């Protein structure tokens, strides 16, 4: 019996002297492989008298288990060791390998921020068309025939009838003319005005929303927009509400926010007024309803529009409008 126990000691000794998997496998097959020493001993168990067989058999099995255990243990140790050794060779401060992420344009980001607020409020997102007729862009919006914004100086014309929309409000008309109220719509996109200087680009972006429903009033308009502005700027910024004039809304108001730069103390950014205009809105003019065959006695409409560039300039501290369409990668990569 004792001589069999020696196998354990031998295996232990041999295992102590090896460092790699190949040697380990050699030991493994030498002792417990198909023709291994211990395997052969077990095979030859028949040589023993019947009464001893079961005792010796048990004993040999225990020895085998023990050896398997020792080998597995060593195996774990070796693979752990080799892993550790591999790790040692890595300079983990080298840069990662792969594609560096790109960016979306700040206008896309701003539009998404705004749209997601209104979508949560139950507004339905639509696309408007950029090429439209004078009829849709001006006439149906109650813009007087001699309104200055209609002339060739301010509006891009394609021919005598078609033009590039000067505001996203044309979308309102298309929706109202082709559908039945109630409506709760938000739409954004490019608009065009023939203007090009430090504070104007001939193309810019607007977002516009409107609700047509029974029992809708200026109080709702205020509720939606003030909460939107708080949400967009992330704080309860002071607001200034003032009367304004738009041909397509009556009454009309504009909302100023306190200048983020000077906190109302007056600076060059707010042209020394302490306020920055961000939004125009109002009750949809009865003439617009009439033009779209909506009964002014049953329905009321509220509408609002804002400039994306202006909002993002304020929020992200961008001081030059021309950066938006110059597309310098140094600018683009910042957002």
């Amino acid at each position, binding site marked *: 019996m004792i001589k069999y126990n020696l196998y354990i000691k031998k295996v232990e000794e041999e295992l102590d002297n090896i460092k790699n998997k190949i040697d380990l496998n050699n030991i493994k097959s030498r002792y417990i492989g198909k023709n291994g020493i211990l395997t052969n001993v077990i095979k030859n168990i028949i040589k023993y008298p019947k009464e001893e067989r079961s005792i010796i058999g048990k004993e040999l099995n225990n020895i085998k288990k023990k050896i398997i255990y020792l080998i597995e243990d060593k195996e774990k140790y070796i693979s752990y060791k080799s892993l550790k050794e591999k790790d040692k060779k890595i300079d983990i401060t080298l840069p990662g390998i*792969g594609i560096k992420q*790109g960016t979306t*344009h700040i206008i896309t980001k701003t539009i998404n921020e705004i749209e997601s607020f209104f979508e949560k409020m139950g507004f339905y997102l639509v696309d408007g*068309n950029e090429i439209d007729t004078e009829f849709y862009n001006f006439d149906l919006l109650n813009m007087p025939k001699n309104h200055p914004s209609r002339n060739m100086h301010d509006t*891009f014309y*394609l021919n005598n009838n078609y033009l590039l929309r000067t505001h996203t409000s044309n979308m309102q008309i298309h929706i109202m003319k082709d559908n039945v109220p109630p409506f709760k719509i938000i739409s954004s996109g490019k608009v065009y005005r023939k203007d090009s200087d430090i504070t104007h680009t001939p193309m810019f972006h607007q977002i516009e929303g409107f609700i047509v429903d029974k029992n809708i009033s200026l109080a709702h308009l205020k509720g939606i927009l003030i909460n939107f502005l708080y949400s967009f700027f992330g704080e309860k910024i002071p607001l200034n509400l003032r*009367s304004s004039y738009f*041909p397509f809304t009556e009454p009309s108001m504009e909302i100023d926010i306190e200048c983020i730069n000077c906190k109302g103390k007056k600076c060059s950014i707010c042209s020394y007024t302490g306020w920055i205009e961000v939004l125009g809105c109002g009750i949809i003019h009865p003439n617009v309803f009439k033009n779209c065959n909506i009964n002014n006695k049953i329905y009321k409409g509220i509408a609002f529009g804002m400039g994306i560039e202006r909002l993002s300039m304020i929020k992200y501290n961008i001081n030059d409008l021309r950066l938006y369409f110059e597309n*310098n990668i140094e600018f683009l990569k910042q957002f």
Partner: protein
Amino acid sequence: MKFNLKTIYKYTNINIDIDSLVKKLTKVGFESYLDDEYINISIPYNRPDCLNYFGIIKEINAITSVKVKKIIFDTVSKIKNEVKIKILDYNFCPKYSHIIIKNINNKKCTPSYIKKELKLNNINLHSIVVDIINYVTLLTGQPLHVYDLDKINKSISLKKIDVQNNILLLNNNKMNFNTDVFAIFDNKNILSIPGIIGCDISKVNNNTTSILIESAYFNDKIISNTSEKYNLFTKSSDIFGKKIDITRQKISLNLVIKLITEMIDGIASNIITKQNKLFIKNQRKIRLYKKNIYEILGKKIDCKKIENIFLNLDFKYIKLNKFWLLYIPFYRNDIEIEENIINEIIRYYGYENIPCVYPDIKTIFNKNENKIDLNYIKNLLVNYGYNEVINYSFVNKNIENIISKNKHLIYLKNPLSENMNVMRNSLLQGLSKTLQLNMNRKHDFLKLFEAGNIYSNDNNNYKEYKVIGGICTENNSIEYSTFIKKNNFFTIKNIVENILNIIYEKKIQIYNKIKHNFLDNEDSTEIIIDKCKVGIIGSLNNDILNIFSFKKKIYFFEIYINNKLFLKKDRKKYKEFSKFPHIRRDLSIIINKNILFRNLIKYISELNIIILKKIELLDIYEKNIDNNNKSITLMFIFQSNNNTLTYKDVDDKIDMIIKGLNEKFNSSLRL
């Protein structure tokens, strides 16, 4: 418009400090700011009545609730007004007043305060008489016209021109007028085109001693139409075109008399007025229902407060049970409907006094569900390392013509510049210019994309299509950091295919090599789904590289996403997948170089092996193979939905494929 503070204080009783006046004016819709001794007020388009001192003073009085200072000028007539006027069309001219003044000295200098005021509002200086009447117009908003009395016959009439007439105007231009234009005649000549411009013949000069001054109301529409038709725009036509107050003719003349007699002597006559009494009687009346105020503003406002606003605005009213009947002053031509009055109420009541209320959020069935999510596509490109740019939709015509040969472009009638005179027909020009700009600034590895519209003219039908496109340099990045060192046709194709899978339901994509205007013939393709072109991929050809002076290979792609027919329509539904293990087999074959991969795959799929779930290309190479052939390694995945496959099941199918390929393409196995 710039107003002199001194003049404002002269005609009002207000005593508030100027800062609060500016604030209050801004609040009620007149954005204002201080500029030295002037106050600059932007007058809204609908309030031309405030484009003069008397108008803005009325508004200031209303803001400050100050009682109006009565402006009266007593004048005594010393001579008889001997000029008779005959008006033949009271629709065009419902009111006409005039005076004559004799013995004036028109050689004197205009007082500096008047000069200053006129200059401030960009009104040219003339002789003192003309300067005075222009100054009075600035004060009252009433355009006036002065004639040299000695140059005209004493009886004048207002009627349409009877024969076509070439007239020398006081601005020295000769103009041919048709018979549809109104004119003031004496018995010989045309003296003026009333409301627009005077004629040379009756013009005053420094030697003039006797004058006739006209103060009338002319129909706004007729004046604007005439101005437009003859392209003849004057200060006077501008004011008349915006409608004036029909009650200010007399007071304006009195003011003129006062100033002229004070400054340059003169003896004035009585004022003669001819008018259509009906017009005056027709004061506009509007009903304002109490319930409508609440419906629009969302707040019940105390009746006393509302009536107080009427009082401040000088609106006379009769109060009835459910509504007020309001008499609108003649100078408030902007007030036509009930909503206009509600606007007046909220203007003075203050928007800050309206509560904030949330509208009910009604459930709207999510119709947005099946729209293509452009943001999703944009994010995909961002993850491929692309930066989004936004370019102007108008581009240079010459370059666009090269890019979009044989296509009908949309030209701008009044472009801003040569570089922006046509609507883009592809994103290429804008993206190339942006790439060029950044490459000039030493940015060598660039991947840019843009999503926007392109435009085309289909038989005078102006159309816009939504597209997404990208451009990139051949080198991807510095050598170390990217596993794909170079962009090529296939890396771009991978991106485009992924995007197309987001947009379109159908997966049948046919690639056609094409002769293209701006892409290289060798590595470019158009992509077709159901006979419809949905995109292009390729490297830019030499013509385009030269235009933008690109020295490297540039890849471009464009995907059209406006084709509603092919967009994903149905909501995705879960499909049961096989729970049995799959078996993989790799196969390397040697096959003729000219056989397209597409045909190979098509043939295998037409063998209709149901358990063949997927074929993928593992490797392809031509080195160490004889000249006519290439080696292709394919991976086959077999899986059954019903049972675990045996090796035999799979081996049979693989044999079938090998045999098939051998027969069809004369391919051989590579061992």
